[in-house]
């Protein structure tokens, strides 16, 4: 069954509560104002005799009342909503990572275990799932109405989204940011399975190599190892254990080797040159697509720090 209206994620209930409150509040205000207009229109219609106290031109206390009360209400709503928003934006620890590559006009998903799918995404219920997303062309937006979550997927930059599904089932996955001709066709399904069923599904893909293994193959195929292997003659940094560590750059600044940095190092190698090295690494833009990049990064992340390897230049 395809469920779309009722919330199915851990955040949906709280969100719907805020939505309900807003509806109630604006409903009361709207009905109040409509009632007042209606009443005045009838009582004070032209030609109708009724007591009209001296017309007032304005009244400071009244004005201040209807300035300050809405302001306070608005502040309350604001605080309520940003607390939820911070929850939506902060990925909880221990979330299960899945990698999403969007392109005109399809969703490609890769699981860390190596299984890949298009326009379908299998996830387990009861466990936070974290999507790391990037686009190969224009901006898309990953939207599952039933989960009440949405995040734009940008070219050139990783964005993240997380959710925890509470009920097994099939849910619409929609592209919400206009992305060209077949924007409305860029739809898919999120299939939420019980954990055991999910584990079975994950293993059921035949003998697919996991993401890091695929990355390792790419690392050799594209000649990275020619420079970066410890035995190489070329003076290039050792990549083992690099991810997550601070890096000293040639221009004097420091940065942390996160995904974005790794991606930039491969596509725009001269953007941030490591201190102590020549900028000889060629750009691989155009040779590697976003999925390959994800695999390569997964591989780099999987490398253990080599014992005895030289410390990065401080």
């Amino acid at each position, binding site marked *: 069954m395809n469920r779309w209206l009722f919330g199915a994620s851990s955040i949906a209930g709280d969100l719907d509560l805020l939505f309900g409150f807003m509806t109630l509040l604006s409903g009361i205000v709207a009905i109040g104002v409509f009632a007042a207009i209606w009443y005045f229109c009838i009582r004070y219609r032209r030609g109708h005799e009724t007591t009209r106290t001296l017309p007032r031109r304005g009244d400071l206390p009244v004005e201040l009342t209807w300035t300050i009360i809405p302001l306070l209400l608005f502040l309350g709503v604001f605080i309520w909503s940003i607390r939820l928003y911070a929850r939506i934006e902060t990925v909880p620890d221990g979330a299960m990572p899945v990698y999403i590559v969007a392109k005109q006009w399809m969703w490609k998903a890769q699981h*860390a275990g190596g299984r890949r799918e298009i326009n379908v995404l299998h996830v387990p219920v009861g466990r936070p799932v*974290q999507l790391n997303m990037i686009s190969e062309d224009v901006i898309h937006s990953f939207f599952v109405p039933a989960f009440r979550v949405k995040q734009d997927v940008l070219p050139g930059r990783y964005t*993240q989204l997380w959710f925890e599904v509470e009920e097994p089932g099939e849910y619409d996955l929609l592209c919400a940011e206009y992305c060209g001709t077949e924007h409305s066709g860029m739809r898919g399904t999120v299939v939420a399975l019980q954990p055991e069923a999910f584990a079975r599904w994950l293993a059921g893909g035949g003998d697919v190599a996991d993401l890091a293994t695929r990355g390792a193959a790419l690392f050799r195929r594209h000649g990275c190892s020619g420079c970066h292997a410890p035995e190489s003659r070329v003076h290039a940094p050792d990549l083992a254990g690099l991810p997550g560590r601070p890096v000293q750059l040639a221009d004097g600044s420091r940065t*942390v*080797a*996160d*995904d*974005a940095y790794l991606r930039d190092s491969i596509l725009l190698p001269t953007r941030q040159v490591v201190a102590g090295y020549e900028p000889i690494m060629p750009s691989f833009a155009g040779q590697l697509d976003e999925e390959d990049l994800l695999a390569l990064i*997964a591989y780099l*992340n999987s490398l253990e720090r080599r014992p005895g390897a030289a410390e990065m230049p401080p």
Partner: protein
Amino acid sequence: MNPDHPNRDGDRTRPNSLRTEYLLTAALLVLLGLNVASAWLPLGRWRLAVNLAIAATQAGLVMAVAMHLRSSRPLLRYLVAAAGVLVALLIGMVLADSLTRQAVPAPW
């Protein structure tokens, strides 16, 4: 004809004296020289601030003196200030956004 007209100031702005005009030009040239010099000084991150401060001073001088803002009615000064504030806001908020975007922590 229009007695309570607050905004019809006629030509209240006075012509600058010759001395003022030459002093202004001299000041602009000196500031230009300082600005050029700053490019070769080891100022590091401060260079941008120095550059902008000098440029803003030049701009302020030109507007106040050559464009007669100092002797015009206040409205014009408010308007220019508003435009300056808006540009600063635009740049400030855009940079504030890119400054506080969280670096995506390595998830693996």
